[in-house]
């Protein structure tokens, strides 16, 4: 199978094929022999070098954890059409403030309609005994507030949104 693997915007083509008791990986004009236990738990010799790694998929990404590091790759079948990137959505959500971790909202320091400067503390969330003040991602007017004090929030949950621009 031919797989296209992307990391940091760089795409590479890798051919994976059965070889002896294992697999061969062909890329950049090289041939790497892979042998051992493969799957979500990889325990393999790569050209004789022992490598233990955990591999898992998260959406379009394959995450490879080994040597205390985690590499994130986007993979696709070389025969499949290329998928569009999610750039536009990210742009539109630039003024949104999301909880980066689960916790409890302790205080909301602004109201809908307030004009705020980027960096101003807007919501205080407590998690793991720490109070964290989350600040305006950009200058503008607060268009939505989705939380109130005492409310538990999940990781990634929208806290509020700021519409860019000064008065």
């Amino acid at each position, binding site marked *: 199978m031919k797989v296209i693997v992307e990391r940091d915007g760089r795409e590479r083509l890798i051919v994976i094929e059965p070889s002896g008791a294992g697999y061969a990986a062909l890329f950049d004009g090289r041939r790497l022999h892979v042998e051992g236990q493969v799957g979500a738990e990889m325990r393999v010799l790569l050209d004789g070098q022992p490598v233990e790694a955990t591999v898992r998929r998260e959406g379009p990404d394959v995450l490879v954890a080994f040597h205390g*590091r985690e590499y994130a790759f986007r993979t696709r079948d070389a025969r499949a059409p290329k998928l569009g990137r999610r750039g536009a959505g990210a742009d539109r959500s630039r003024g949104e403030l999301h909880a980066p971790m689960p916790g409890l909202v302790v205080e909301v320091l602004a109201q809908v309609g307030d004009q705020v400067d980027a960096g101003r503390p807007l919501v205080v969330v407590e998690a793991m005994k720490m*109070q964290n003040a989350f600040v305006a991602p950009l200058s503008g007017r607060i268009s939505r507030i989705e939380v109130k004090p005492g409310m538990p929030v999940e990781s990634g949950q929208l806290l509020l949104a700021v519409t860019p621009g000064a008065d």
Partner: protein
Amino acid sequence: MRAIHKVLVANRGEIAIRVCRTLREMDIASVAVFSEADREAAHVYAADEALLLGPAAASQSYLNVEAVLGAAKRAGADAIHPGYGFLSESAAFAEAVEQAGLVWIGPAPEAVRAMGDKVRARALAIRANVPVLPGTEGPVADPAELRRAAEQIGYPVVLKAAAGGGGKGMRRVNHPDEFEHAVKLTQGEAKNAFGDDRLYLERWLEKPRHIEVQVFGDAHGSVIALGERDCSIQRRHQKVVEESPSPALSPEKRQELWDLGVRAARAGGYTNAGTAEFLMDARGHFYFLEMNARLQVEHPVTEMVLGMDLVREQVRVARGERLTLTQEEVRPRGAAIEFRIYAEDPAAGFLPQAGTVRRLQLPSGPGVRVDFGVREGGLVPFHYDPLVGKIIVAGATREEAVARARRALGDCRIEGIPTTLPFHLWLLEQAAFVDGSYDTSYLAHHFHGLQPPPAGPEEDQAMVLAALFAHLEAVTPRVPYYTPAESRWRSGAALRAEPRDGGRR
């Protein structure tokens, strides 16, 4: 002498497990307590009995004096070990424990009261000729008064919760403009964590080392120093790495520091385990910071260089026995370093993150000790401190201990939650850590988050594995993900089929 047959451990996580281990070794029954969020926590299964305290919020469970005392009564415990954090430095709790006729395994309530309040501790230290930093004389609740003190002493200053400890409720203020918001946040944390929003303020020392003395007293008038610990590797004023001996002390300075620690402990009428914390400036002058009237998170480094069990010693002293050692017998050997594993993302400003530990492979072998509070498949709830465990290494020399740490932490695999592990691996490559010359400002100046792993042979290997994984997904109906969670049912959910991870989500 007071007999102790059954101890309630009023804590959770790694310290509750660690205390239960020693109790088991002493043939003393142990009682765990837990909140609604901790029903399946590892510490529950480290004890002989376990009782529910109440809802997840610490104020309604681990900080709830009535619930804890009620559990002790129901279980028939005759003593309470508070661990660290939570109620460990509450003099009111210690008193309530003793009034309930139970043995308090820790310093006498009067000493907890005297030393737990930083302001009173400071006054006691001054009286005992132990040097302190310039600052407010007493606890201050009024922001305006705090501001006046800051202006008198000169910025930068540091705000501290009077009842705080372990770096919690502590904030540096560099400039008058930040002052108001900083006071508000610190008061909020102090109120929440310790039920007391009084603060005090003192001069901020540039580039000091944070070195503490482990002190121990018995009911027979002995107070000794069990060596020191260097805790200068800090982020957010909180320790992440501690070691003993301190690489910054000459034998003479070490002796001086131990003596100061014993003097501070005597001033507070100290028994049982405590820690006298000091800052040391560039000229080698010591300043007393505070006294922690409890076991410290980092007590294992002392245990490793001394070959003794401090929890066992705590229980012995609480029973009225004499200290095992005299000061002359305290002879540390080799070097030990502790690495705190927090559920925090070092790539994102050490932001704590709750979650499920999907994979946990802990190091072992010579000179490696592991004290962990979660297991594979276990949950790190967001309600409590994000410390999930500690890895402690010892070596015949500091150099060997550092090399061992690289090996041991490199062998460790934790997945499902971000941890400080990659941060520690970074630290172990830094010259200032390897040569021991770091100070408490080191991380703020030199740690700028973790870089994504670079391109190179290792990236190529990872890429090959990613491609192979994609190949396996394509040719097999489903990828057998590693899912320890699959092997479990929860009570009351026996009939609910757990969804299985499909090959391609």
